[in-house]
């Protein structure tokens, strides 16, 4: 005897992709109901909100937890079992025994429904893909500690087909849902949708399209039932079917000469099923093989006399030999139907058998048998469980990406690596962009972002942080953030650039316009709010979309576990879109650690860094240079643009420079590698970072410049309190020139500003941001959804910082 202290039950099948709330989904719901009723110590692990909602009426919500390493870690102690409920379900990639369970070394029991695909391979393994799945399930089954079969028949056949030790298979049975009650307890209305008006008395049979359900044998048997019964009764066949199956059944009925006596209902609702069973004079289960045979029990529970096949598990369910027939012999089925309809004494015997079955097969008994089987059979080995590691993933672009956020993520990841080195967690990079995780260089801590949802599962991670910008370099990360519950880090409070960028990449208006329209429509639906109408021609213009208030953030924010932004302006935008949450953290951008800060440069170069488009106001910057030449006499000043140029911006800059007579003062050097980028900054005297439309994003370029000790001028509202090292001015050429001039000509003023820039950068580093991020993701789940927390340096030039001002 090994006491069971806790049971972790996989509740994902209750909303299974193929079974939904039928079949195995219904079984798992019932089992959880039974465990609740006997007050067993268990946790139901769900994979989605839908599953949690479905379960909320069945078990105490306190017992429901989302799948996560934490849910397993909290119970990774001696006496805890994991109950796999979808070991034999298609497809295996649904992850029936997640890694974290194996990592925790928990003993595993698996519910065994049936091995029908192995017993009838010609029918169920004809497709090579189905055969491969069947081949891999058997070895997986052999890795578990014990099997809990739903019938002795399932137990016996599993032992043979899977090569599993029979002595480690227990039978736990099944139960019936509480909704299946006799008419005298609660009579449901006649199901007129599926039962024609002229049908009065009828025999019901719940079958299916599979050959083993024996619908053909049933129709042949009905033809052999004697006339008085057929004159007074119709045969009602209840089963979901496609049109091919229906056509075949109708042909069989016609061949048997009973076409006018049979009703095929198609799929029915739960209430319709109960009503059909309550109103029937007899239920027939002609199946040739079942794992259990729930329809027998459901019919009995509704007070309907029931007869069934004398093979597979069915005689276990209905323990009355007189109620059984040979399913391979239509004559035997016909005799059983006739006797059950016409012989009152026999009907009494069938009703008694049904009552015994409904008393025997109840969910609390299944739950008790489950717990006692685990206790008596115990784990195969006595290896003590261990707590699985906390695992945190950062998803986004990294090395090699043209996105500036890639550079940022690399630096942040280095800090997180250092933190993981001293803290008890594992850090994983999920890389957005092809070519960054080549198959020839596998690394267990670096995966393509699209691996999540494929090979990696959301429940492999305690936290996934998605670092998002607004360009096509973030497409896969944006998809992840929209589909899974992540901590969404918005470097810009918009995703318009992601989708516009993807649309441009497609090169096809026939694809991109509907894509953009679809994105906008989806956001309207989710947020229940109306955005400004945008005509098709404007759908690919980010500035027009921004002006119309389109951000495409609604869907992502609705799913987010928390949101992280870099400024007050951005958090206001997030709350405008979704006022009631999720919890938000204002986390200013970090300043990089640089090898060497600049000395006083010999030249008078102004540098503008980053992705170069019209929103960076390059023409205004050129005008400011012209003003420096004309009004401040600085004819040796130069403006250097560093970064990839987009669209027609180069032509615009060239035209403006020629018009203002400063063409020889402007230089565009394109995108530089890391060392050339750093050298270019070091050779510059002043930085100039501008925006036409400021959506509350902070500028990594500003952070780079300050960290190098380069005084910077900007119009960004998020820059923080102005200081000598970081001057914040309006977007006006003359004003910009007035701010730039002293830094270009006065060496003392420059030196003071450079020292201030370095101090600002040192006050908020990547290590600070990593620490704040780790603290936030651990606490976010416990915060009220409308929480806004602010962290960062107390003021722009101070070394002190707040750990968490709310």
């Amino acid at each position, binding site marked *: 005897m090994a006491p069971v202290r806790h049971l972790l039950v996989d509740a994902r099948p209750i909303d299974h992709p193929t079974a939904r709330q039928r079949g195995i989904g219904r079984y798992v719901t019932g089992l959880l109901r039974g465990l609740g009723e006997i007050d067993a110590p268990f946790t139901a692990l769900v994979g989605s909100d839908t599953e949690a909602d479905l379960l909320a009426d069945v078990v105490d919500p306190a017992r429901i937890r989302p799948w996560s390493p934490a849910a397993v870690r909290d119970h990774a102690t001696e006496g805890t079992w994991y109950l796999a409920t979808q070991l034999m379900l298609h497809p295996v990639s649904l992850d029936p025994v997640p890694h974290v369970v194996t990592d925790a070394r928990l003993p595993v029991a698996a519910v065994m429904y049936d091995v029908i695909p192995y017993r009838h391979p010609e029918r169920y393994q004809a497709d090579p893909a189905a055969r491969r799945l069947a081949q891999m399930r058997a070895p*997986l089954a052999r890795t578990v500690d014990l099997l809990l079969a739903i019938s002795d028949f399932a137990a016996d056949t599993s032992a043979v087909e899977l090569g599993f030790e029979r002595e480690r298979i227990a039978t736990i049975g099944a139960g019936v849902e509480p909704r299946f009650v006799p008419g005298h307890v609660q009579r449901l209305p006649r199901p007129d949708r599926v039962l024609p008006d002229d049908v009065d008395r009828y025999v019901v049979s719940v079958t299916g399209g599979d050959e083993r359900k024996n619908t053909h044998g049933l129709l042949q048997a009905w033809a052999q039932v004697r006339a008085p019964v057929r004159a007074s009764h119709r045969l009602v066949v209840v089963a979901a079917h496609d049109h091919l199956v229906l056509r075949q059944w109708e042909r069989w009925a016609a061949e048997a000469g009973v076409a006018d006596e049979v009703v095929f209902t198609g799929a029915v609702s739960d209430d319709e099923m109960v009503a059909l069973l309550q109103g029937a004079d007899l239920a027939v289960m002609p199946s040739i093989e079942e794992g259990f045979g729930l329809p027998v029990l459901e019919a009995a529970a509704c007070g309907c006399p029931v007869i069934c096949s004398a093979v597979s598990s069915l005689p276990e369910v209905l323990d009355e030999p007189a109620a059984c027939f040979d399913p391979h012999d239509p004559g035997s089925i016909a005799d059983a139907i006739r006797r059950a309809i016409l012989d009152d004494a026999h009907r009494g015997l069938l009703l008694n058998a049904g009552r015994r079955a409904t008393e025997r097969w109840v969910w609390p008994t299944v739950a008790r048998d489950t717990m006692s089987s685990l206790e008596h059979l115990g784990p195969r080995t006595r290896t003590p469980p261990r707590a699985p590691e906390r695992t945190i993933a950062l998803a986004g672009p990294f090395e090699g990406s043209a996105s500036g956020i890639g550079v940022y993520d690399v630096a942040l990841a280095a800090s997180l690596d250092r933190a993981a080195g001293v803290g008890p967690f594992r850090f994983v990079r999920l890389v957005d962009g092809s070519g960054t995780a080549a198959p020839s260089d596998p690394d267990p801590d670096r995966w393509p972002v699209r691996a999540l949802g*494929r*090979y990696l599962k959301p429940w492999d991670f305690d936290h996934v942080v998605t670092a998002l910008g607004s360009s096509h370099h973030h497409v896969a990360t944006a998809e992840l953030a929209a589909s899974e519950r992540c901590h969404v880090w918005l470097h810009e409070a918009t995703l318009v650039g992601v989708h516009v960028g993807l649309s441009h990449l497609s090169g096809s208006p026939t694809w991109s316009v509907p894509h953009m329209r679809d994105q906008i429509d989806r956001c309207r639906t989710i947020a229940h709010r109306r955005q400004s109408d945008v005509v098709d021609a404007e759908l690919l213009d980010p500035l027009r979309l921004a002006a119309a208030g389109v951000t495409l953030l609604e869907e992502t924010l609705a799913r987010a576990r928390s949101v992280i932004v870099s400024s007050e302006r951005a958090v206001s935008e997030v709350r405008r879109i979704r006022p009631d949450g999720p919890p938000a953290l204002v986390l200013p951008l970090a300043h990089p650690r640089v090898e060497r800060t600049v000395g006083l440069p010999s030249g008078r170069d102004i540098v503008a860094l980053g992705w170069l488009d019209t929103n960076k106001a390059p023409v205004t910057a050129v005008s400011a240079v012209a003003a420096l030449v004309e009004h401040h006499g600085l004819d040796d000043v130069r403006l250097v643009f560093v970064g990839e140029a987009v669209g027609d911006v180069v032509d615009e800059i060239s035209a403006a420079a020629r018009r203002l007579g400063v063409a020889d003062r402007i230089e565009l050097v394109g995108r530089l590698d890391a060392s050339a980028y750093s050298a270019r900054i070091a050779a510059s005297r002043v930085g100039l970072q501008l925006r036409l439309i400021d959506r509350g994003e902070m500028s990594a370029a500003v952070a780079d410049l300050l960290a190098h000790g380069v005084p910077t001028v900007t119009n960004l509202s998020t820059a923080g309190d102005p200081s000598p090292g970081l001057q914040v001015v309006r977007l006006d050429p003359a004003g910009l020139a007035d701010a730039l001039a002293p830094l270009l000509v006065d060496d003392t003023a420059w030196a003071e500003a450079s020292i201030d820039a370095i101090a600002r950068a040192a006050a908020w580093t990547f290590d600070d941001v990593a620490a704040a991020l780790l603290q936030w993701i651990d606490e976010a789940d416990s915060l009220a959804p409308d929480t806004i927390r602010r962290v960062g340096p107390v003021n722009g030039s101070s070394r002190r910082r707040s750990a968490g001002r709310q």
Partner: protein
Amino acid sequence: MLSDFIRRLRGDQVVANAAAELRAEMRDELTSMRELLLTINHVVVQIHEVVETLNHDVRAGAEPVLPMFLGHAERLRLDADTAIGATQVIERQLALLAEQVAALDQSQSPST
């Protein structure tokens, strides 16, 4: 009698050494199998990305072949899923094997 004991002791030592070598080999095998799994998983994800890219390209530019391409893409996706399932099974088997090796190590260590 003493020489018998020494012979037996030497024999036991030989067996123990062989077992230790075997365990070391098993550990190496486990490591190389894990590396292989990582490679397979990375390839599977790469296949998925290629399918998605092709899917996008075909939708954008080659309408007439779309139905056939989608059929092939779905087939490829299912095969990738099957491969993923296979690696999950192998990973669990490997983890259990590794535990067995660790338990053997512990039972053979001098302190026990």
